[in-house]
């Protein structure tokens, strides 16, 4: 009996030790990247709810902001996740003073829920904070020489793009492809045929842009459609990829807003002003985003595609969502359905 007790004791000690090691070791160990939110007893606490890709950028922004006079007594708690998930979380009650998402409809949802003023996009930048473009990302060295939209539909190629019913990134990708075709003079029918051919080359649709990128870096696929800032981020993290900015692509515009129920609107506005300042825009730039303020030094190092169109050129988000992504009648829904039925097995 005592042997069993001893055994139990040893095992229990083991489990406790494991937890103690991880939980307590942190207080003495170096804090790699938590300094941003660990303000020393800031008087005011703001909540930033953002999508997942600019996490590194915002960590740096917060640190820089807290070094300025306006940010000295401001502590900012952060939450990062998929853009749609985060938006819905705020809509169902998650505390937020500042929200930053990947596409405007995720802010519109909050306007509808009366959590963000309808005037959020009234400033000179229309409520946007950063830009990016849809690019074609490939393996390092681009061994299969995939550079254009036409290259993507070559038979036998594997192209990755996320599931358009759960991912904003996927929607930007599809609209970029469709827009590129129509801007090149193709008819709607031809553009739709292009999308069909493209989807035939898609073997897996992860549920978000970042997950899709990880599937790619994990070895699957020949090319992947991503945000430019995603490709840059992956390269900064030593992933073996290259990317090409197609001649014709869509301008991705990322929105930001202060919530109407924020209890610290002054400090929130101060943070926002910092993000629009040259210092703030430079940090975004260092993390792969195209600054929205065109005078930011270094903004011209981003390649300019010959043909850059926006969501407005495609009728705006509301019309585009209905036309392409409606669950019953959307263009993409029909394409996916036809592909699913016509190809068998795996």
């Amino acid at each position, binding site marked *: 009996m005592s042997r*069993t007790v001893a*055994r*139990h004791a040893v*095992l*229990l000690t*083991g*489990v406790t030790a*494991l*937890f103690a*090691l*991880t*939980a*307590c*070791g*942190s*207080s*003495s*160990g*170096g*804090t*790699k*990247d*938590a300094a941003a*939110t*660990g303000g020393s007893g800031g008087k005011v606490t703001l*909540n930033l709810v953002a999508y*997942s890709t600019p*996490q*590194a950028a915002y960590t740096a922004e917060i640190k820089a902001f807290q070094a300025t006079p306006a940010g000295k007594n401001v502590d900012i*708690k*952060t*939450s*990062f*996740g998929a853009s749609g*998930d985060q938006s819905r*979380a705020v809509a*169902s*009650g*998650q*505390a937020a003073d500042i929200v930053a998402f990947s596409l405007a409809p995720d802010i519109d949802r909050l306007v509808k829920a009366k959590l963000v003023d309808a005037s959020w996009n009234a400033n000179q930048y229309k409520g946007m904070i950063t830009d990016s473009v849809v690019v074609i990302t490939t393996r390092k060295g681009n061994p299969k020489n995939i550079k254009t939209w036409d290259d993507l539909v070559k038979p036998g190629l594997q192209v990755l793009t996320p599931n358009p019913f759960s991912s904003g990134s996927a929607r930007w990708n599809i609209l970029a492809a469709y827009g590129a075709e129509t801007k090149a003079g193709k008819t709607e029918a031809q553009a739709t045929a292009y999308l069909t051919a493209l989807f035939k080359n898609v073997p897996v649709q992860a549920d978000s842009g*970042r*997950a899709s990128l*990880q599937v790619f*870096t994990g070895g699957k696929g020949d090319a992947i459609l991503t945000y430019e800032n995603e490709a840059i*981020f*992956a390269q900064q*993290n*030593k*992933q073996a990829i290259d990317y090409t900015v197609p001649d014709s692509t869509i301008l991705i515009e990322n929105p930001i807003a202060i919530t109407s129920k924020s209890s610290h609107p002054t400090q929130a506005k101060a943070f926002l002003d910092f993000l629009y300042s040259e210092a703030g825009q430079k940090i975004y730039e260092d993390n792969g985003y195209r600054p929205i303020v065109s005078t930011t030094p270094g903004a011209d190092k981003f390649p300019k595609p010959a043909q850059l169109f926006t969501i407005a050129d495609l009728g705006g988000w509301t019309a585009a969502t209905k036309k392409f992504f409606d669950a019953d009648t959307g263009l993409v829904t029909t394409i996916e359905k036809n592909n699913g039925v016509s190809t068998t097995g795996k």
Partner: protein
Amino acid sequence: MAKHSLRWVALAYVTLLLLLPLGLVTWRTFEHGLSPVIDALTTSEAGHAFQVTAVVSVLAVVLNTVFGVTASVLLVRHEFPGRRLLNAAIDLPIAVSPVVVGLALILVYGKFEPIGRWLDHRGIGIIYAVPGMVLATVFVSLPLVVRAVAPVLEEIGTDQEQAARTLGASGFQTFRRITLPAIRAAVGYGVVLSLARCIGEFGAVAVVSGRIVGQTQTATLFVQERFENFDQPAAYAASFTLAMTAVVALVLTRYLRLKGQR
């Protein structure tokens, strides 16, 4: 011999499905030596994440143990209308996907829903705070203690309990001094399995946590976040820790299961 071929089939099946994944996590974690692992686990973010996991899991297990033992006694030793329905209802959480768990809890306890609003006016926040995470964890691990204890209660029979009653013991005394000691090993087994399950919960907690870095981010959410930021050392280090906790829990449950069978 037929007996030996069965053995090999079982071993092959289990190795393929279980042991290889475990080996792979270990290999990937220590690919570059021990120090990256230590570094990754000693950041304050990692520390906070494990703390949150510990707090949420322990609370959930305590709640489910009280419920589990009570429900087992009710199901096995008593009869009442709706007993079969209760039995099925306890198993129901297994069929609910984590996304739906999150949705369901938010529909009731969300700040803008009737009950949630009532609680919010009294300063009680459930969703996007620790209580909501405990709730989600309790949901997914609900059946475990019941299913560990009920079969044992069934098996030991009521002879001793009835003897105690005829000798004048009250219901509670009988429970405390006869029943409880008899099912101790089974309760232990259920507790350890529950604890492991709670520590490992990801999906449902992800939806209701709010993912506030340093506050409502659990160890599993930490793994996902690190992996998404291409910080594979940290993701695998945390995964390894979680996997080892699971293995320790398994070894413990084996002893407890064997003890109960003796």
